[in-house]
C-alpha cells in the first residue's frame, strides 16, 4: 500500500482548524414536534424574557427553542404562536421537553427565575422593561 503522510505544515493547519470546531451530536431525525399551534393569551399569565446578560450559548438555545420570550400561565408555556406541549413539574421547577431530546427547567434562582438547559447552559429570566417592550 503506497501512502504519503502530511507534512508539518499540514499538521499545523489541521491544528489551527481544530480550534474552530467544537463537538456536536448526531441530529435527531424528522420534523420537530415539541410545540403546537396556539393563541398566546392576550393578557393572562406572565411575560418573561431571557436577560441580555446571560451567556451567549444559553441565549442561542433559548431563541432556537422559542424560550427567549414566553408567556407562562400556570403550567402552560406559550411562545410566538405556539404552546410548548411537554411541560411537567419537578419540585419547584417547571420542566419543558424540547426537540432533540433537550429539556429546559424554569426554576427559582435567588430572587429571580432561571432557565436551565439539560445540556448545561443557564440563562437569567426577567420581565421586559418598558424600553425593551417598545
Amino acid at each position, binding site marked *: *500500500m*503506497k*501512502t*504519503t*503522510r*502530511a*507534512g508539518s505544515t*499540514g*499538521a499545523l*493547519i*489541521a491544528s489551527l*482548524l*481544530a*480550534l*474552530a*470546531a*467544537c*463537538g*456536536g*451530536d*448526531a*441530529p*435527531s*431525525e*424528522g*420534523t*420537530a*414536534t415539541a*410545540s403546537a*399551534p396556539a*393563541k*398566546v393569551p*392576550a*393578557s393572562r399569565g406572565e*411575560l418573561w*424574557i*431571557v436577560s*441580555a446578560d446571560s451567556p*451567549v*450559548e444559553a441565549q*442561542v*438555545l433559548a*431563541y*432556537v*427553542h*422559542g424560550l*427567549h*420570550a*414566553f*408567556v407562562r400561565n400556570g403550567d402552560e408555556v*406559550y*411562545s*410566538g*404562536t*405556539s404552546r410548548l406541549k411537554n411541560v411537567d413539574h419537578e419540585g419547584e421547577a417547571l420542566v419543558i421537553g424540547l*426537540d*432533540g431530546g*433537550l429539556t429546559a427547567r424554569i426554576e427559582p434562582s435567588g430572587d429571580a427565575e432561571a432557565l436551565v438547559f439539560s445540556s448545561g447552559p443557564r440563562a437569567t429570566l426577567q420581565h421586559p422593561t418598558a424600553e425593551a*417592550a*417598545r
Partner: protein
Amino acid sequence: MISLPLTALRESFGCLMVLLVLLPVPHALAQAGSGTPEEDIIFTYHQLTGRPFDVQTVAQSSRLVQSASGFDRPEVLKQEVERLNGRIESQDPAREYTLSINSYISDYDHDRGEFSINLFEPGAYVPLWYEVGYRNVQYHLVFANGAGIRAIRMPKEEARAFDGEIMRGGSRNVLIETKFRVTGAGDPTGAVSGQEVIRAELTGVRLLHGNGNELYTPVLAATPAAPKAPFDARALDVAGLRIGVDADDFASALERLYGVPTRVGRDRDPKVNPRYAGYLELDLLRCMRLPGQRRREPQVGDICVRAFFDEDEVVRAVVIQRVFPRIQDAEVVRRSVVERYGEVSYTGSAGNSVIGWGPTVPQELLAYGAGGATALSVHVEGLFDLMGSSNRAAEALLVLQLVDAGWANGAL
C-alpha cells in the same frame, strides 16, 4: 485498493464572520485526474445526485481535444463528451472505495475521558479537486456516520498506555484507512459547506501508524433503517412563530411578546410579491447597523419580525431576527439548530453562513432573501459598526426563516 495522500481539513459554521484566520486553505489536496479513483468518486456523486457536471467544458479543455487539428476537433470533442457522459453513467453506486487519509488523534480529554479523531469531528472533510476548464472545482467529501466513532473513550490508566502507543511514531498523526460508499450530497450536520459536498457512508475504518501497523479499529454502528419523517413546514416553528396561522392571531402574539406590529398591504408596498396580500412587521431596521444612523444602535435582545400573509389572511412566510452579543464560536449556533431541526438539506458556502432544511421554495417568496432558498433556514450575520475603527463584528444577528413550502410550491 486506492491510496491517496490526503489530509482532512475542517471548517466551522459562520467561520468567515468570526474565525477568518481558520478558514481551510487549499493544501495537500487530491487532484482528480482522468480515470483515477478520485474521478470515480466525483462521477458517482454526480450520477447519484443528478447534480450537473460541466462535461462540455471538461472535454473542451482536455489534452485530446486541444491537440486535435481544427479540422478534427469537433468530432474529437463530440467523442470526448460521449466518453465522459458514459463514464458518469456507468459508475456503480454500490461500489466501495478505500481512501487513506492523514489525520491526528487529540490529547486525552481528562474531563470527558476520551481521545478524539480529528477526521470525524464536525466540520472535517476530505478535499478533492477537479479541473473544469481553467478553474478547479472543489469537492468536500464528508462521512455522514463519522460522528459515531469520533471519540475513543477509555479510563485514564488505559488511556496513558494508549497515548504512549500513539506517540510511538513521534507525533499524534495517524493514517486512517477508510472504506466507504458514496450516498448523496451535503453534510447532514450542516458543518461542511460548499457547492459540491459529497456525502459518504463509512463501512470500515482502521487507524494506522505511519509504518502501516494497526493502532486502533473503531466499531461502526449499523445505519438506522427507520425512514425519516417527511419535512413538514407547518409542524415547525421558528423561535415560537409558525406559518399557517391567521394574520390577526399572529399580530396579537407579536403584540403580547414584543410590541405592536405594523401592518402593510400590497397597495402600500408594491415590491411585495403578488402572491402575498401584505405583511406584518416589527421594524427590521432596528436590527441593522446603518452608516450615519446613530439614532439607536441595535441592542442585544432586540427582536425584528416580518411575516407575509396571503389573500386569505393566512401567514405563509416569516422571518425573525434577534440581536446577540458577538458570537465567538458559531459552532454553538450550528449545533443548536441541527439538534432541534435534524438533518440539513442545504449548507451555504463559507461566508454565507446559511444552513437550510426541507425543499427549495421560489426565491421571490422568501421573507429574507440572503442565502439559500429552502423552506426553513438559519443565517448568522455579523453586525459591524460601519463608523467605527474595528473590523470585528460588534454583535451577531441570528435570522430564522420559515416558508410554507406546500403553498409556495403550489401544492395547496
